[in-house]
């Protein structure tokens, strides 16, 4: 009759502390804004006073206003000391650790181990700490699994060749040999037999004293399940997912489909039952993710890991199924039982169910590896992607091609042409490109299919399941058929077939040599149009209340009617360098304002990590491409009143003019003006150059260094400073590859200038709200990588007045109605405009929260012509805020990117940002720095300063000495410091070792040094 289960009494938790994840970095990105936001909604629904700690100012969860937001938000680092401080002040009853990624989880475990949580009587909600530890500690995890007859991939550490052979015989060949503590997989290798093992192990042992013998899982399938369990032991699997790439590629870097496509019933349910068994045994309460390796030719499997928290995969599963995992997990953490929670998408069935999908979802990661100098394009067990997209279709071909376009709007679909400017597919090495997983392998597969590689050949090289490859082969075959067509010869049936396989109008047009528009017109003439379908979690078994939508050519009718005539808001697309959670904040702010004004909203976005794609944020959500074709399809089908394109960053902004030309009512600033501002050559003092000679001549006139940038790009892609003619030529070639349709703009690069940022909103050409911030760094560092101070600290009154005046003129000149951002240089009482974007910028959330006025809300009201309140910070109001300072600091992901050069340039490299506040700029700066992971030094400081800056640095060095730090310095610097009576021990550069002094690397490794101050030469 079912096991009797002792149901724990309901929790009493009137006040709850939620830990966020901090600044976005690779591996821990926007998905935690989604999870935290949903958790807070769930807590507020239960009338719980909610305290949030998160220095990520660009996130939606750190908003202070609204019923679904936290009652108190602390913009402080997620570290033990700060959390304890907040606990002491707020005295919460419970703490939620599972919504803020690894950062929150680790911090919570540390606080528990130190007895802090116990001391203040704070109860850990959801999965207990012991269960969390069981999933984090490999040994405990393996032991726990053994208790229920399950296993992880066997691995043994050995120190001799003989014990390696013995270990391999225990585990069974083939085995993988890995040298412990070796960088970049040095010394690892696959061994099929003893002979090979002796050879590889022998080599590996020369590199490292210890090697690991692991069971080889090469070519195994990687499968994941998302599981929820309540305190009463009710447990269901919400979604299963299959990786397109076989095991070996981090799941965050894999193409993933949901539900699994190549698993039989037996395999699917075997892994599902195991998931339930494991989750119950570990005692998870809330949500978790379990990853498997499944042998491709048998029922053998191993458990890779269990994540006892919300994760990137759970965000994807949530958006793929319509099941609000984080919301449900938060409710379960409060002790509420699964059958008692409503399925919020149907509003009539229970949340205790397993979603059924009548569509297929494809996730493709976005890498941007070319933005990090010198880093390898190979992908593997450590995640490198910065964002992802999710596409929904009813054939794999449709869903996959959609996703490829979403990741890079310049890509047509499954083609061999690369989206990236810094890379090209190399000829002759196709087999290698297929063998080694990389951020471009999918394009290599397209190339191979075009070169008549068979599915079996590609399978042998990639180990990707043949089912996927057959489907990709079909895309290539359709492409070949289409190439024989002309616009006149296209039969409806063939056109429909291509569209059902996910071909875009532009892609088809390119194949037959016509413009996208002509292709579109022909298609519509033939009556080939997409259908609008609902995601309803139940495969339409019960009527859905949700308006969670996608478009497909594989259908017979629309799932709903179109009589709302709402306003369309275009979201941000995939998170990538330069477009991150801040643009999702802008979109959410816009949508919420519109809804408050009683206007229906139609949102288009395809980024599963966002809050704007949550089921309850808008009236109609299209999980669709941000392309001209699809946005027009939706706009025309919905008969929208207008479209907001200025709150989602550069991807929607680029659509302004094409949409307008096709009859879309673009709300706010005229698209012609947006275009005018983008074509930078039209505003002085820029010059557009179209040839190398042009550029050389311009450089000769103004003198080096010169700044080059292509128009219509975000965050300085291919933007560079050239210090001489050779560099200039190289950079020009690169820029030409980024954007062929638009000219490259050149200007004199001004050294030693201050940079000022103006975020503003104008109405009919008149500024109605503004905020001025100052960059800590001198001009030359990309504004996305710069540290911002609000209000400015070192800019003179006169300069501020000039900036305001210039802003007034810009608003007037471009007749701006909506958000805009302008960057200025200030040097010698001279103010120059260096960039102007007639859209929301990445600093909008920061200035909005610091000044206390939601700029996007103001801009939204402007765009729909709604009266504004008269207390806004227009140009006549004094600088705000007063009494405190806000600092926004960039967050980098260098530790994730081995070999990458962390030197900052005008091309953006940061992956996220944080902001903190303080009475002074220094107090705020220190907190912000600590929020990005910076630890205050305690012992030694290593200094290396280029000659020209040494005099300026002297007072700082003296202060550090007086504070009691041991100073180490590179030889020249040490000599200089010693001459000025500051003791500093000389060290050698690692490459020049052999002398008597210790090398810098050794000091860092031995932890003698815990801070390095390095101001190198321009050319090092």
């Amino acid at each position: 009759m079912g096991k009797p289960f002792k149901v724990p009494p309901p929790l009493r938790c009137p006040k709850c502390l939620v830990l966020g994840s901090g600044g976005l970095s690779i591996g821990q990105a926007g998905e935690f804004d989604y999870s935290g936001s949903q958790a807070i909604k769930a807590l507020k629904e239960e009338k719980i006073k909610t305290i949030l700690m998160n220095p990520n100012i660009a996130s939606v969860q750190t908003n202070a206003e609204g019923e679904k937001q936290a009652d108190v938000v602390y913009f402080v680092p997620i570290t033990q000391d700060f959390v304890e401080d907040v606990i002491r002040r707020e005295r919460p009853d419970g703490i939620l650790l599972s919504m803020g990624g690894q950062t929150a989880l680790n911090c919570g475990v540390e606080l528990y181990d130190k007895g802090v949580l116990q001391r203040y009587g704070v109860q850990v909600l959801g999965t207990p700490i012991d269960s969390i530890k069981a999933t984090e500690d490999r040994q405990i995890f393996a032991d726990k699994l053994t208790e229920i007859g399950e296993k992880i991939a066997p691995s043994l550490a050995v120190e001799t060749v003989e014990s390696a052979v013995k270990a391999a015989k225990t585990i069974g060949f083939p085995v993988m040999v890995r040298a412990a503590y070796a960088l970049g997989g040095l010394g690892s290798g696959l061994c099929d037999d003893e002979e090979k093992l002796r050879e590889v192990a022998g080599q590996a042992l020369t590199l490292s004293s210890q090697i690991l013998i692991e069971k080889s899982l090469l070519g195994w399938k990687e499968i994941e399940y998302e599981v929820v369990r309540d305190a009463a032991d009710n447990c269901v699997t919400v979604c299963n997912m299959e990786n397109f790439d076989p095991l070996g590629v981090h799941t965050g870097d894999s193409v993933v489909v949901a539900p699994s496509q190549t698993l039989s019933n037996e395999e699917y349910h075997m892994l599902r039952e195991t998931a339930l068994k494991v989750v119950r045994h570990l005692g998870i309460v809330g949500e978790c993710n379990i990853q498997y390796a499944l042998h491709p030719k048998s029922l053998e499997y191993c458990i890779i890991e269990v994540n006892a928290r919300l994760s990137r995969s759970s965000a994807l599963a949530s958006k793929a199924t319509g099941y609000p995992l984080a919301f449900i997990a938060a409710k379960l953490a409060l002790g509420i039982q699964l059958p008692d929670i409503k399925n919020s998408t149907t509003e009539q069935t229970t949340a205790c169910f397993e979603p059924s999908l009548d569509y297929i979802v494809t996730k493709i990661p976005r890498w941007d590896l070319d933005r990090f100098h010198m880093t390898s394009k190979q992908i593997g067990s450590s995640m490198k992607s910065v964002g992802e997209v999710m596409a929904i279709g009813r054939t794999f071909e449709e869903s996959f091609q959609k996703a490829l376009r979403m990741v890079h709007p310049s890509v047509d679909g499954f083609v061999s042409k690369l989206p990236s400017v810094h890379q090209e597919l190399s000829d002759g090495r196709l087999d290698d490109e297929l063998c080694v997983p990389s951020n471009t392998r999918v394009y290599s597969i397209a190339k191979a299919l075009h070169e008549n590689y068979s599915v079996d050949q590609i399978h042998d090289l990639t180990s990707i399941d043949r089912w996927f490859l057959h489907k990709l082969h079909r895309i290539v075959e359709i492409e070949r058929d289409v190439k024989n067509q002309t616009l006149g010869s296209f039969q409806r049936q063939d056109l429909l077939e291509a569209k059902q396989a996910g071909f875009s109008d532009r892609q088809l047009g390119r194949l037959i040599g016509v413009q996208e528009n002509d292709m579109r017109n022909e298609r519509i003439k033939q009556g080939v149009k997409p259908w609008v379908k609902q995601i309803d979690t139940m495969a339409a078994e019960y009527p859905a209340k949700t308006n969670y939508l996608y478009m497909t050519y594989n259908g017979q009718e629309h799932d709903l009617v179109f009589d709302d005539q709402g306003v369309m808001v275009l979201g941000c697309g995939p998170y990538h360098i330069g477009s991150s959670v801040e643009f999702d904040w802008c979109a959410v702010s816009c949508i919420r304002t519109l809804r408050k004004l009683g206007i229906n909203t139609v949102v288009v976005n395809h980024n599963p990590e966002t809050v704007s794609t949550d089921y309850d944020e808008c009236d109609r959500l299209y999980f669709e491409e941000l392309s001209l074709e699809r946005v027009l399809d939706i706009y025309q089908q919905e008969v929208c009143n207008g479209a907001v394109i200025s709150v989602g960053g550069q991807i929607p902004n680029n659509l302004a003019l094409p949409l307008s030309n096709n009859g879309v009512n673009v709300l706010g600033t005229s698209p012609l003006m947006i275009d005018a501002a983008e074509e930078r050559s039209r505003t002085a003092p820029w010059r557009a150059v179209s040839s190398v000679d042009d550029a050389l001549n311009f450089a000769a006139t103004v003198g080096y260094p010169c700044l080059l940038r292509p128009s219509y790009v975000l965050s300085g892609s291919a933007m560079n400073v050239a210090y001489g003619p050779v560099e200039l030529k190289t950079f020009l070639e690169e820029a030409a590859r980024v954007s062929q349709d638009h000219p490259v703009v050149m200007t004199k690069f001004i050294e030693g200038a201050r940079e000022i940022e103006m975020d503003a909103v104008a109405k009919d050409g008149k500024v109605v709200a503004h905020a001025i911030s100052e960059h800590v760094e001198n001009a030359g560092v990309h504004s996305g990588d710069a540290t911002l101070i609000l209000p400015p600290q070192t800019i003179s009154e006169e300069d501020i007045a000039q900036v305001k005046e210039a802003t007034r003129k810009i608003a007037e000149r471009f007749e701006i109605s909506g958000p805009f951002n302008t960057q200025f240089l200030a040097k010698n009482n001279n103010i120059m405009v260096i960039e102007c974007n007639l859209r929301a910028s990445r600093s909008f959330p920061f200035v909005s929260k610091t000044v206390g006025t939601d700029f996007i809300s103001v801009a939204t009201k402007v765009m729909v012509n709604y009266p504004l309140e008269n207390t806004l910070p227009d140009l006549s109001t004094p600088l705000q805020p007063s009494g405190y300072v806000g600092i926004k600091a960039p967050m980098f992901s260098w530790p994730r990117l081995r070999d990458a050069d962390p030197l900052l340039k005008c091309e953006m490299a940061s992956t996220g940002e944080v902001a903190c506040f303080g009475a002074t700029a220094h107090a705020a700066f220190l907190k912000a720095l600590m929020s990005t992971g910076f630890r205050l030094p305690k012992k030694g400081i290593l200094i290396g300063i280029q000659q020209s800056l040494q005099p300026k640095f002297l007072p700082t060095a003296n202060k550090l000495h007086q504070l009691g730090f041991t100073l180490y310095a590179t030889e020249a610097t040490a000599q200089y410091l010693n001459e000025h009576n500051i003791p500093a021990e000389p060290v050698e550069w690692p490459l020049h070792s052999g002398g008597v002094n210790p090398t810098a690397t050794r000091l860092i490794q031995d932890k003698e040094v815990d801070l390095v101050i390095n101001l190198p030469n321009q050319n090092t």
Partner: protein
Amino acid sequence: MSLILRASSFLSRKGKCSFCGARLSSFTTRPRKSLSASLVLEDGTRLKGYSFGHNKSTSGELVFNTGLTGYPETLTDPSYRGQILTLTLPIVGNYGVPSTTEQDKYGLLKYVESEKVQVSGLLVQDYSHNYSHWNAVKSLSEWLQAEKGTILGKIEFDDQPVEFVDPNKRNLTAEVSVKETQIFGKGNPYKVIVVDCGVKQNMIRNLVMRNAEVHLVPWNYDYSDDIYDGLFISNGPGDPAMVWDAVLNLRKVLDSNRSQPIFGICMGNQLTGLAAGAKTYKLPLGNRGHNQPVINQLNGQAFITSQNHGYAIDEKTLPSKWRSLFINANDKTNEGIMHTEKPIFTAQFHPEAFGGPTDTEFSV
């Protein structure tokens, strides 16, 4: 006829049965040589598609299943006898079809639930012409073509008009039941009589694995005077009221003083209800899929079940000494009953497709 109309109103509401079997092309992955066919509904709706199975017109009750995997098992489930099955999973055929004749150590079919494809037709959205699985021996298309009399991807081929037939007016149970008693797990300590109303192989396997000597008897076999340790009423297709002989046999046992446990699944649940004196009714859409949440009313625990039924017991008509045991968490329909004094339990869902609950429920 009203049954088909309900199904069709569902279809026109959601447009779930767009289907394409094959596409036009000369390439092997996209064979052009497939026949087009139409799905015709009783309300006049006509939807065009392509056949990838055996090209012969058919008719039946249109039902749908929301499971995400398991088409070989579903297609051979005798409960689908006479029905045209629509899968809401959009892409089908991916992993081919495993051996349909291989037997396990109990003499039961290893990978399928009965000897043949039981459905009259299958509707899918996208068929995978190229399958990929280590355990597959043929494609879904090949299997369906070989199984003559089974028609896929359409109801009606252009030159083959066919009448609407309501399979629920036929005794489908008699069509799928064994004709003579069969024994599995011979020599096992507990003798269990399994009344075959359309039993799935996996049910027999679960009993044999738990030390039962299974005597699989025809649906209308009278076992009331036989010696046995336990009685099991299986699942099956169609309307339970059509198999009244089975109800009467069971009623004889219920009215006697026999104390051996009785267990029923799916149709077995409905027959037990009818034998006890309760009534059954047809559900508007039926519950078919692998994701149906069910609550055990004894301890409040919920679990996810596999289901396939179009009829349900009307709980309000249960006589005294009987109570509801399980309830569907979504539509609150009955999912199982029990006797308050005797060891009689039944489940509307299919516990054999779900791990836990079976263990305690019918170890004899």
